[in-house]
């Protein structure tokens, strides 16, 4: 029998152990499904049904027109307010999330082409939602002016306020600004990381605890055979899980892979060298499965927080942005989004391919060396 035969024996053994453990199968396939479902629906920065209070001190045709542009669509839900209400109270009493104040001369000023102003008061506790709400409202108001200036062209000169330059924005690749298009690839990237790192972090230390590692050290098994025999099954399992996740994302969220499947798998395999390497590195240095769990959770949480999944990397301080740059997960996540949503080609992603390859080479190489010394 050849060296390949030894590795095959390992692969067979690993698969038998994994397939026999019901807990393992649940962790590998049921949890990801649940995670995808829950996080896919929950982690969204789309804002809907914003409770909008409108204090109309003008009561002109223009102001009524403006109000009606807010009530169409499902973004704003106009809540009833009374004359005596004021904006701050409406917000602190949770009656409204944002309040639009239309001043008394709004209509008249506007008709005369004078500077007119509107006030928007927002609940800023959740800054992200407030920013989104603000931009929605700004959009509605801009639309309103646009329409008004068109209908009025025949009657009066163009008012100063209506812009001479019209900005037409087009949201490419995600015209509806569907949040799931952004979050689902992110969740998939996290799943791939968690599964591969957990499996490999436990792998060696479990054998250390059982005493089977010592038994293996007496046999003529070479270290590279042991490593290959462990990592190949984990690589395959993670890729299967990735496949399952993509399928589910298609079924549930209607996510379609815009790019090439081959590119996606290529990047995943390259990335797995880093995450499996990190797991092996942990596993060869710790003495118990608990320690392995602790260290891998710690590393994963940092990687996920700095991946741009929850907070865009550009919003982070410069120093943290540098850490994010060396975070392989943030690159893998970017790549997944680009491939899944934009359909970017391998050539367009060549920079990321270089970065992820370098990271894989570095981490995996280091973990192999560390493994040789420690085991």
């Amino acid at each position: 029998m050849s060296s390949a035969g030894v590795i095959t024996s390992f692969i067979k053994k690993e698969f038998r152990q994994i397939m026999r453990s019901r807990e393992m199968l649940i962790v590998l396939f049921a949890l990801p499904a649940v995670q995808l479902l829950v996080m896919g629906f929950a982690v969204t920065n789309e804002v809907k049904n914003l409770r909008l209070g409108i204090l109309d001190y003008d009561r002109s045709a223009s102001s009524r027109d403006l109000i009606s542009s807010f009530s169409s669509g499902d973004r704003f839900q106009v809540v009833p307010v009374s004359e005596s209400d004021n904006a701050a109270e409406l917000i602190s009493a949770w009656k409204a999330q944002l309040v639009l104040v239309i001043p008394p001369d709004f209509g008249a000023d506007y008709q005369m082409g004078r500077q007119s102003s509107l006030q928007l008061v927002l609940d800023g506790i959740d800054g992200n939602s407030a920013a989104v709400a603000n931009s929605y409202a700004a959009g509605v108001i801009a639309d309103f002016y646009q329409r008004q200036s068109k209908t009025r062209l025949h009657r009066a000169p163009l008012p100063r306020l209506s812009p001479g330059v019209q900005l037409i924005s087009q949201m490419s690749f995600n015209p509806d600004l569907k949040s799931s298009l952004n979050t689902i690839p992110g969740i998939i990237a996290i799943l791939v990381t968690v599964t591969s790192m957990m499996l490999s972090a436990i792998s060696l230390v479990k054998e250390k605890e059982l005493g089977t590692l010592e038994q293996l050290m007496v046999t003529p098994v070479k270290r590279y055979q042991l490593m290959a025999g462990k990592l190949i099954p984990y690589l395959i399992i993670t890729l299967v899980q990735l496949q399952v996740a993509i399928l589910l994302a298609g079924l549930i969220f209607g996510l379609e892979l815009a790019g090439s499947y081959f590119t996606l798998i290529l990047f995943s395999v390259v990335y797995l060298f880093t995450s499996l390497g990190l797991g092996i590195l942990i596993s060869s240095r710790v003495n118990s499965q608990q320690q392995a769990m602790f260290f891998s959770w710690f590393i994963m949480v940092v990687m996920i927080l700095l991946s741009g999944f929850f907070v865009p990397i550009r919003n982070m301080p410069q120093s943290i942005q540098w850490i994010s740059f060396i975070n392989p997960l943030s690159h893998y996540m970017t790549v997944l989004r680009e491939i899944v949503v934009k359909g970017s080609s391998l050539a367009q992603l060549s920079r990321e391919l270089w970065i992820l390859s370098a990271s894989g080479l570095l981490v995996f190489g280091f973990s192999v060396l560390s493994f040789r010394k420690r085991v």
Partner: protein
Amino acid sequence: MIHTSHLVKQFGSFKAVDEINLEIGRGEIFGFLGANGAGKTTTIRMLCGLLKPSSGEIRIDNLDIIKHSEQIKHKLGYMSQKFSLYPDLKAIENLQFYAGIYRVSFEPALKRLEPILEQFGLSSILKTLTQDLPMGYKQRLSLVAALMHDPPLVFLDEPTSGVDPQARREFWQVINDLAQSGKTIIVSTHFMDEAEYCHRVIIMQDGREVALGNPAELKQEYGSANMQELFLKVLGVSDAKL
């Protein structure tokens, strides 16, 4: 089969094994006796290549253990103190795995070991998950796993701890047969009655050899009725103290 000279293992300032010189022949059952911490397990771990000696020389089948470690690993079977088969594999899958690791074909190996499997009563439980087997069966299965590649040299580190006397006797029967077929058996134990099965024993204390020889001859030399008495006498502990 085994030759050591001036074998020393030092952990920091602690000498776990101190100047052990051994000459063990083919087909011999050689026992390591001693209290916990006497250096038995450390010596055995060095002999099978798990630990590097601090100084001294080990030759197995006339091969230096450091220079020819790969060759030597094919020649030895090792059954550790701690039960170390995979609990979540079936008995037969464990055997298959070790056959694969040693690069031997499984079917012929199993056929060769059939008499031992029969003697151990393992044939009927091969399809059982290893974790569901009683301790005695696990021990026997470990021994069979260590024999998959038909090694001429077998190390057994406290193989019978936690096993009932009846099972221990059967176990030693098989060990005896193995030695008769020409295998060299190195065994460590703290059961003194088991020492009687050995052709020669070394009694160790604080990493040093305090007695070495055939059990019967040693008993005569020290004027002891049994191994227990001999052991205590050699270590200089009187019965009265116990």
